[in-house]
């Protein structure tokens, strides 16, 4: 894998994100621009059907391999709220983890129940 294809792929990713960011601001919709960019990139992939060696595959693969790294700076933001979290520990803990658990289990059971009718076994 040479460097040039990755560069071209990064350019495509950034352009899709830029188009998405501009689109949500232009239309005034409260929605994340990158998610619109994801849909644009999906349309591009569906129409171009690039080979695995292509820039359009190499660049996103590179970013996705280290996706967790990119969440760290936002996560460190919790440092600002440590005091507030300690003050309201009980409602925050129950609200966060209780709700997370119920939401997760309900979603998993609804999806797996309905998927039994769709016979692709992945």
């Amino acid at each position, binding site marked *: 894998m040479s460097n040039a294809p990755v560069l071209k792929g990064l350019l495509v*990713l950034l352009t899709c*994100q830029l188009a*998405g*960011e501009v689109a949500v601001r232009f239309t005034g919709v*409260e*929605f994340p*621009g*990158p*998610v619109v*960019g*994801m849909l*644009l*990139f999906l349309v591009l*992939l569906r129409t171009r059907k690039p080979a695995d060696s292509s820039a359009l595959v190499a660049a*996103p*693969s590179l*970013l*996705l391999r280290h*996706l*967790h*790294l*990119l*969440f*760290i*700076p*936002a*996560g*460190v*933001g*919790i*440092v*600002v*709220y440590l005091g*507030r*979290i300690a003050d*309201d520990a009980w409602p*925050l803990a*129950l*609200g*966060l*983890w*209780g*709700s*997370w658990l119920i*939401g*997760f*289990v*309900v*979603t*998993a*059971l*609804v*999806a*797996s129940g*309905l*998927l039994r*009718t*769709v016979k*692709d076994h*992945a």
Partner: protein
Amino acid sequence: MRVYELGLHASRTWDWLTTSPLFGITITVAAYALGRWLHERTRSPVFQPVLVAIVVIVAFLKITGVGYAEYLVGGSYVGFWLGAATVALALPLHHEWHLVKRAAAPITAGVLAGALVSITSAILLTEVAGGSRELQLTMAPKAATTPVSLALSTQIGGIPALTAALTILAGITGAILGPWILDRIGVTDLRARGIAMGSVTHGIGTARALQESRTEGAFSALCMGLTAVATSALVPLLLLTL
């Protein structure tokens, strides 16, 4: 060189260090590398690299007295790529498209059920535990991806930055406990696992789902996007009655 000069140099160096982007970028990559190393050594799901890195950096900032804003001078260069990485999530979706398009109904139902239950239970459980109205509103959008939960929190009168922190905690919880819980409740279909991960644990859960399988990652990426839409629509609606 006199001692006070050395002290002066040390303090100048420290000032440079904590205001240079190099500091935030290096500590972020180093903490992540440490997290990955620990994860590979222990093979324990508790040692999620993202969690280890956040704990290490938070501890470091607390000990040295460096503020979050100073850390972000460099940290934001790393965080910047999250947008492009979100765009990149179209790749697994493209590869698994043949499975995704046939599962439209279960995906829609899963996302709607997930958003409804997440929002309602977040508000009610925070209230039951004695949380203020402001805290309930802060908790309400936590299952949606960070930029959406942050915007919604602002819109409905929560504390936006705290919502972002809670959203990330929900994601980390999903990355650690999600696959284990899915095994316990007998959900083995990779598509269903992906739907649950994406709908309730957004990007951090999606990254974890991608590690399990490309199919699970693709369904998770799609449901993360759809949950952003569903949460944006449902939070204001549900607040009319809750």
